[in-house]
């Protein structure tokens, strides 16, 4: 499920490259994350044959992956979630990674008034973005950011409205600031073998020659 206000145009090239054999949807209004209470991608849920959620995890990278990030590259994630998912598919309720309803409830993010108001505000921003009213879109993206500053879906989608490079820069700056000034955990540990848990997504930088050169220039 691609959560992207740009719709198919923004995500089709990745879907096409993946040649998926599974069902694929584009969710331009972030409906799915609202329903499941997720605040970033990648997030994932396992739902059993009776329609029960038996695991809901944020930061659920499907594999160790290298991304281009501006002129640099970052390495994120590992195989822990994919390995556990295969185990659940094979063993169902006997998988040690399945959560009970009580365990799930304990891990849900609280749904307070600001969370709910931020959701309505963010959807309003998405509407104005889709209808080409950038001024009102930016105003409501900013309001949603103020109401739900920990919701990376809102932040990153809103920043992307200004531009991809701008959004990347904002992510870097915010991550650096948080690393220095906050001890808050953004994701709960997935509690999976080999998880390599971190408080929030902290990429490992792979310096490309262009990025290394830029870094040297900035130091002068």
């Amino acid at each position, binding site marked *: 499920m691609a959560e992207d206000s740009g719709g198919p145009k923004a995500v089709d090239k990745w879907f096409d490259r993946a040649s998926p054999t599974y069902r694929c949807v584009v*969710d331009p209004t972030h409906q*799915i994350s609202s329903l499941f209470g997720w605040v970033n991608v990648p997030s994932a849920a*396992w739902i059993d044959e009776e*329609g*029960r959620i038996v695991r809901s995890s944020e930061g659920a990278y499907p594999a160790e992956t290298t991304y281009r990030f501006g002129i640099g590259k970052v390495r994120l994630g590992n195989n822990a979630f994919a390995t556990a998912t295969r185990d659940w598919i094979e063993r169902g309720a006997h998988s040690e990674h399945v959560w009970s*309803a009580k365990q799930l*409830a304990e891990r849900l993010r609280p749904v307070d008034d600001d969370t*709910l108001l931020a959701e309505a505000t963010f959807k*309003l921003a998405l509407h104005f973005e889709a209808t080409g009213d950038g001024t009102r879109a930016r105003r409501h993206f900013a309001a949603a950011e103020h109401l739900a500053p920990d919701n990376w879906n809102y932040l990153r989608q809103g920043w992307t409205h200004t531009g991809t490079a701008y959004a990347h820069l904002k992510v870097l700056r915010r991550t650096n600031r948080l690393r220095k000034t906050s001890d808050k955990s953004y994701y709960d540990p997935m509690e999976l073998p080999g998880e390599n848990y971190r408080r929030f997504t902290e990429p490992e930088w792979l310096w490309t020659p262009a990025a290394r050169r830029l870094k040297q220039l900035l130091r002068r």
Partner: protein
Amino acid sequence: MIILANGKTNEVSQRTEANGALWVRLDELRGATGWQMKPEGACLGELCVPLPADRREDWIADADGWVWFCYSEFADMIGQKHVRDGDVWSLGSVPEVRRSGLESAIAPDFEITERNGDTLRLSDLRGHKVVLFTWSSW
């Protein structure tokens, strides 16, 4: 007037004298918000909220030749957040649905269009294991 709710954009009629409130024609209520009127009250799926009889005039009005329901008044009562900008109203999740659905561990149902144009409804996948996975381009 436009109502954003449940991931959909719904164009609905506008009451002439709305006085800043969100009035929805009863015949457009379900399509625009998911709620419908039943003898037991306003209902969304299996959730029904009784409407106080002594405040009927706060909720229901005859105007412009139609029967209207004051949705913003109702939303305030059930704690559903709403934001307005011009003639666009955005409705947040219904708190009771969001909380009780996840706390019961039953996956909230949704309907969304697949890349190939088919409609995917989560409840249609009962009997299968489902892995939901979100990603994005940003």
